[in-house]
């Protein structure tokens, strides 16, 4: 097993798939010559050339719409949104076109496209560049939404996304590219739509993904020192949502905390909590607590920004609260 960063994992996945399938190409802003604003596609332009690593104008509709069209006629484009915040400029394509084309035309069209996008706050980029609007995109049937939190999952899931015949939104986090983790050698994929227990425990179930996973694992270590063992279940995929490991865990612990970086209202946590209550009502020993971003646009000031974002301390506090 090699230990690599999430950035390296994504890079590797892209390269492996591009090597494997000539239909795979990349298009987005600054992905080619610049090497990608998060350096994910560094070196790709030289290796694969302009035809397969397409620098686009700053025109999100053209990027995503174009990727949809290319996918419909048989290619496998991996479009990049410089940040998910720019996804709003291409909303119609992401949620109104891509997820519906297969359905609306009786199965005649396939859209085997991947949209990679970076999200999340914590770098003082200001309110319009720091959002985690995952829940919005996860709302639409027909779109698959994936958000890994480890290098192993990032690599395996991106490969699956590229090979999938469905449109997949692949959400990365701006502050997690350097997170290190073990990755299996050789060829492997991870199925879309499967949650995973990343850490076993008996006292409280933490359900989370992406940045929340990183924070929850740190919280788990701290809580362990106090004799509290939390079980951390990583969603990995937001749609389709796999509740099985979560319910199984919850039946064991009877108490849960859901952690996400997005806002609490109408967020991913709302969905998870609802389903736990629906599917495991008799196992609920305490109300489920959601840890999420404070209901504010994210400020520029560093201290305030950190105060608004969920932290490890918020998670440990929530775990203790739910144990009362």
């Amino acid at each position, binding site marked *: 097993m090699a230990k690599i960063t999430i950035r390296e994992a994504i890079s590797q996945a892209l390269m492996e798939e591009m090597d494997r399938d000539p239909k795979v190409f990349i298009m987005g802003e600054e992905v080619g010559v610049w090497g990608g604003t998060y350096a994910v596609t560094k070196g790709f332009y030289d290796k694969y050339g302009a035809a397969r690593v397409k620098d686009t104008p700053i025109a999100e509709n053209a990027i995503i719409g174009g990727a949809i069209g290319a996918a419909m006629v048989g290619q496998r484009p991996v479009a990049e949104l410089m940040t998910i915040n720019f996804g709003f400029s291409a909303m119609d394509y992401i949620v109104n076109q891509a997820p519906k084309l297969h359905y609306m*035309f009786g*199965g005649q*069209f396939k859209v*085997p496209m991947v949209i990679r996008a970076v999200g999340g706050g914590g770098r003082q980029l200001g309110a319009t560049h720091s959002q985690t609007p995952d829940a919005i995109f996860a709302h639409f*049937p027909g779109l698959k939404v994936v958000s890994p939190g480890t290098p192993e999952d990032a690599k395996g899931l991106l490969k699956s996304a590229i090979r999938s*015949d469905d449109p997949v939104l692949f959400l990365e986090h701006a502050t997690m590219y350097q997170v290190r983790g073990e990755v299996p050698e050789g060829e492997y994929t991870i199925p879309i739509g499967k949650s995973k227990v990343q850490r076993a425990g008996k006292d409280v179930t933490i359900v989370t993904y992406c940045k929340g996973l990183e924070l929850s694992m740190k919280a788990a270590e701290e809580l362990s020192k106090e004799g509290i063992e939390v079980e951390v279940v990583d969603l990995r995929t937001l749609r389709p949502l796999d509740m099985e490991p979560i319910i199984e865990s919850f039946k064991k612990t009877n108490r849960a905390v859901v952690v996400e970086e997005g806002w609490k209202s109408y967020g991913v946590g709302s969905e998870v909590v609802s389903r736990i209550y629906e599917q495991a009502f008799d196992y609920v020993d305490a109300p489920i607590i959601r840890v999420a971003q404070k209901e504010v646009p994210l400020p520029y000031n560093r201290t305030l920004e950190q105060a608004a974002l969920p932290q490890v301390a918020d998670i440990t506090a929530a775990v203790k609260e739910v144990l009362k």
Partner: protein
Amino acid sequence: MNKKEQQLDLYYQMVLIRRLEERGAELYQAGKIGGFMHLYIGQEAVSTGLIAAREPRDRVITAYRDHGVALNCGMSANEVMAELLGKATGVSKGMGGSMHMADTSKNMWGGHAIVGGHLPIAAGFAIGDQYAGNDNVTICMFGDGATNIGYFHEALNISKTWGLRVLWVCENNQYGMGTTVERASAVTEIRQKAEGYGMKNGQVDGMDVTKVYEAAKEALDFVRKNSQPYLLEVDTYRFRGHSMGDPERYRKAEEVKKWQENDPIGIFNKQLIEKKVASAKALDEIEARAEEDVVKAVEFAEASPEPAMEELYSDIYAD
């Protein structure tokens, strides 16, 4: 367009469209067709001439006024009518309706409802074909109203910047819904917008199918040879409202009447007789045949089954 059969076939297609649209309007008013329905009556020459000019490998994509385009691409009146009635035998299995007709086997890529939304996708087809290394042309049809939205500009821009093989065809029927071109657009000649992108462009009388055909042939040739986009503005007019239920308060009856004097079917009829391609009687027979085919299409559609309830959940994902 020289072969007699081809010309008579085009005449048949235009009448077929006209009759199907008329019958569709009746069925809509009878409550059998729901949602939005946009009739092509008056514009038959545009898609007929345009699509007749394409190579089979050229892709066609259009907006929501797509019944005529569907028929011109070779989709059957039966399937089109069945789709209008929402039946399982419809081209999109009843899941798309009037605005979402498609048949990839006929290289007809839909029927799209978001104004201007399909333009970047059309560019995408061309990106895909460019990537694949072929010389397919994507024929993208849209209305004058779509030329003011962002999608139009992003798509035209990237098509020129990347040298994509797209024939951008603007069906200028003088109105974007209820708003004249003058009131919505900075320039009244749509083709002028292509100038801003340094794009080759042209304009043609959309009521004359022969003229449309010739202009389209020239434009397609250009696009294919030069791997450059081309914007063709086609001036036309819709004799009915924007869609069913349009009270047409935005235009005068006299104006409609005036344009109807230039009915494309009438114009072509006259041309065929003058050029001695066919007799009036022969043309009448073609019209009767087209009418008959529409009658059969309605019968087929009405006799067809509704989609099964389970179909609600099919085709959400391809995987």
